């Protein structure tokens, strides 16, 4: 069995064994002449190719190799004796103390034999002389095949076995034209290692075996602990490997890649990482591993992690359940409990507010003036509301302070500005605001929600208090064109997304149907937190909004479900209508693709957390 670690294979490295530290080797031709095999190719300085039965080995300068990889590269010609009618030749590659094995095909093609003869013309006399020493009949065959005119006195040149071991420093081998496809029998590489907080790493790489065999990639880290990266790894297609290693691995390539979340048993950052490649008893050390990627902010880490994630289908769930999901969950996101914030008060707040209204801000704060221009005309905001803006975006702190100071004297709506030192995400920002809330009742409000008329806070209050079992009260939200945006949410499975539960907005984009004032309060599965009233005590009893959702999504239905678990229901007051400029906040993310992936992650998390309760609620609904 042959092992061949292909570290930095790229699609152009056709049939090149590349060792990752800049060392590379390639066999160009392997032909049969009588009972000899002649092997030509090139290597960088360090690698040596050993073949059983070799009686001739000569290195020589090769212009093309030097041009591509520098002076360390040189060509070789080797000859070995073939004991029988073998079709393959086993090679051992030596790089320093490491040994790799590979198997190549022996060609009988006259055209290739002739090509080798033309290329190696200069060395053929020496080869002939060496053959003459030990296998006279073979020397005859050589002279016939290559039409050699031999010098009368053939010198007995000793075999040259290159024993260079010093690793030369130079650029990785560049591609040379391949003329024989000699894929390795097994190969593996580690592409990326991403640190996941203190909890471990996500390892990304690939591994193929051309023969049915069980390979192991054993990761060792401090303290002594070994984990098989391939065990329970998520396998992904690596079509790029087909180009690199040849069409023979086409079937394997479909499953060649892997992602593996390795949990570190220790709180300490692992010190020494190494990977051993094991295949049916053979075992080699992988070349030095890539530098572990570490990210200052977990958001950047999720960006990196989600590069390897392509939403859709059942397979997605496997990846989320076993690798990506736990990895993201273990990133050291900041939480509201351990972040600092700055509180600035503007105007004289009502002494005994009935409602604390919390508006998180991220990415932009120009909505503040638009909202204040509406709130200013509403008596509630001068007598009953404790308005709290939470800036969850430290980049904007300075501009936000100035903005507040500029608009506050015009609109004279008292409010608090709470500036978070960290970006916490939607849940964290709200929780930070809740900690400052002075009223027993809360309204969570998006900054892009604009009231359609004054008195809406009192209207919500009345409806909330009329129903003792009410835990969360949403409202009817409209787009600026008066199309319905939210009238309550329900849970639906989405087949194209691994059958996860999603929050459906029935009627979205359609005309908002008139409501009978007597039946305007409707029980719903969940209501959006774009505008949601609830008791502060209830929220605190469930531990606040769940900060495990990244950036923001699903916290509202999570909240409604958590309250539901305590027997408190969610309602929507369809006769209280506000406008929601939903698109404005979605446009904040330059990388839509990444944002969509985050949504899928949050959706997965929400589904896994609440599957039982949602199923139960949906079943009850169906009866």
């Amino acid at each position, binding site marked *: 069995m042959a092992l061949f670690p292909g570290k930095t294979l790229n699609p152009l490295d056709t049939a090149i064994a590349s060792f990752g530290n800049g060392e590379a080797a390639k066999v160009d031709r392997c032909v049969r002449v009588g009972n000899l095999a002649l092997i030509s190719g090139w290597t960088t300085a360090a690698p040596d190719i050993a073949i059983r039965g070799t009686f001739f080995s000569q290195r020589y300068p090769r212009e093309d190799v030097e041009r591509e990889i520098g002076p360390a590269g040189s060509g070789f010609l080797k000859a070995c004796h073939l004991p029988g009618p073998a079709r393959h030749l086993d090679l051992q590659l030596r790089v320093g103390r490491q040994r790799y094995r590979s198997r190549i095909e022996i060609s009988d093609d006259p055209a290739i034999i002739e090509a080798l003869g033309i290329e190696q013309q200069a060395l053929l006399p020496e080869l002939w002389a060496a053959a003459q020493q030990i296998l006279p009949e073979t020397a005859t065959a050589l002279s016939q095949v290559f039409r050699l005119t031999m010098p009368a006195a053939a010198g007995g040149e000793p075999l040259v076995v290159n024993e260079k071991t010093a690793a030369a420093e130079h650029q990785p081998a560049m591609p040379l034209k391949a003329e024989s496809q000699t894929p390795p029998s097994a190969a593996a590489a580690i592409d990326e290692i991403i640190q996941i907080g203190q909890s471990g790493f996500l390892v990304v790489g690939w591994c193929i075996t051309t023969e049915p065999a069980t390979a192991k990639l054993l990761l060792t880290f401090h303290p002594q602990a070994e984990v098989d990266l391939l065990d329970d790894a998520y396998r992904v297609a690596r079509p790029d490997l087909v180009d690199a290693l040849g069409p023979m691995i086409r079937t394997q390539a479909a499953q060649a890649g892997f992602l593996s979340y390795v949990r570190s048993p220790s709180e300490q950052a692992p010190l020494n990482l190494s990977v051993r490649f094991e295949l049916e008893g053979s075992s080699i050390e992988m070349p030095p591993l890539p530098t572990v990627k570490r990210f200052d902010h977990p958001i950047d880490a999720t960006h990196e992690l989600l590069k390897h994630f392509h939403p859709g289908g059942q397979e997605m769930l496997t990846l989320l359940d076993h690798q990506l999901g736990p990895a993201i969950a273990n990133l050291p996101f900041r939480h509201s409990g351990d972040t600092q914030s700055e509180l600035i008060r503007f105007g004289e707040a009502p002494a005994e507010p009935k409602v604390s209204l919390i508006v998180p801000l991220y990415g932009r704060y120009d909505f503040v003036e*638009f909202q204040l221009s509406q709130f200013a005309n509403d008596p509630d905001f001068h007598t009953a509301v404790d308005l709290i803006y939470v800036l969850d975006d430290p980049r904007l702190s300075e501009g936000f302070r100035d903005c507040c100071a500029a608009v506050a004297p015009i609109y004279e709506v008292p409010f608090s500005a709470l500036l978070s030192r960290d970006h916490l995400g939607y849940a964290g920002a709200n929780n930070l605001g809740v900690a400052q809330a002075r009223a027993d009742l809360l309204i969570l409000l998006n900054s*892009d929600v*604009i009231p359609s008329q004054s008195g809406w806070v009192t209207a919500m209050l009345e409806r909330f208090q009329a129903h003792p079992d009410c835990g969360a009260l949403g409202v009817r939200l409209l787009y*600026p*064109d008066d199309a319905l945006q939210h009238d309550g949410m329900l849970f639906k499975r989405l087949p194209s997304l691994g059958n996860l539960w999603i929050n459906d907005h029935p009627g979205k984009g359609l005309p908002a149907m008139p409501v009978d004032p007597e039946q305007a309060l409707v029980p719903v599965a969940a209501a959006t937190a774009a505008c949601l009233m609830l008791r502060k005590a209830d929220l605190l009893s469930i531990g606040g909004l769940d900060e495990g959702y990244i950036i923001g999504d699903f916290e509202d239905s999570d909240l409604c479900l958590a309250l539901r678990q305590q027997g408190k229901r969610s309602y929507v007051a369809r006769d209280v209508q506000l*406008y929601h400029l939903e698109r404005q906040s979605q446009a904040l993310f330059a990388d839509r693709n990444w944002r969509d992936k985050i949504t899928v992650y949050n959706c997965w998390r929400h589904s896994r957390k609440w599957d039982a309760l949602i199923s139960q609620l949906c079943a009850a609904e169906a009866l």
Partner: protein
Amino acid sequence: MRVLMIAHGHPSLIKGGGEIAAYQLFKELRERGIDAYLLAATREDALQHGGTPFSMLRPHEILFHGQMRDYFNLSPDSLRVVWHDFRQLLAQLQPDAIHFHHILHLGTQFIREAARYRANAGKPVRLIFTLHEYLPICANDGQMVMFDSNELCTEASPTRCAYCLKLRPPRPRTPEELFLRERLIRAAFSLIDHFIAPSAFLRQTYQRWGLSQPISVIDNGLPPMQPLAPRPLQPGQPRARFAYLGQINRYKGVQILLEAIGFLEPKLREQVQIDIHGCGLVDQDEALQQQIEALRQRYPSQLHIHGRYDRDELGRLFNEIDTLVLPSIWWENSPLVLQEAKGYGRPMICSDIGGMQEKVTDGVDGLRFSRGSAASLARAMQRAADPELWEQLRKGIKAPDSIQITAEQVLGLYTEASPGA
């Protein structure tokens, strides 16, 4: 009684209908012994003092040097000038009525500050707003004309407006932005006690838009003018001297007047003389400039394009012509030039839409033609050239509302009790 008149410009610096109307009213109030002050916005930075946004042009005439880059939302660059400087101005003047003529170059926030003053003044204070065009409704320069097609627009909505403005420089606007703009303006407008519309059409348009406060139709009165004698004619000569007076831009439809020459009957086409008085052509887009230049070259002996004129030249200008043409393709409100034509005793031809059509009664004091149609305008000109009909129209002209009438009506609003008081 002390009144603060607030306008978006001062006619000594910029000549626009709204600016002139505000200024005339201010002057008339002072004539009547009302302690009126004018606060007029200007973009002339060179006139500004350091450390204050205010300067004086004449006694009681205050200039406001604000910066407004956000024309879309009509918001000043700095709100401090509102809650610091304008607040100080109000505290110092202690007006009994604050009469806005615009918020352009000022900001919606000035209305809110005025309302704050009203709430804390300890005396009844009236907030009056004279509407001069449709800027609060329409982000396409307040014209209510579709940006790309020049079609008339009758209704604003975030979606429709975003569609209309999608090609408008400097950038397209989303429905959400248009919605927010509207909410901001409406919230400020809700603080006004009483609106004034110089035409019934304007009132109707704002009522349809949802203004719930009373809107009085009071025309922008002008100081009295002396009707001029008809231009003497040789026997058999037609009334073939037409003129356009005013700004030149694509909404004013000057190009339609020029095109109409081609639709005149050959005889009149030979005799017709058209004078264009006004500035602004150089600021217009190249297509319009080229169109006008081509027509000028085609009718070199009929067409005379003059530059800007001063108000005290009006008598001379009207004296040289027979009929005023106002071919606007936008609704207009109550164009001052129609009142001036009436004042000087000259029949008018105008488009049959909006605020202008109610100022011209077809066949009585002028003629109307089908908006945007050069052929229809040519037919009207053909008719007006007939000395007999022309004389009949001239006799049909009624003197326009004088500034005295306007001032009396407006003063009534200043002293009217607040609905809540």
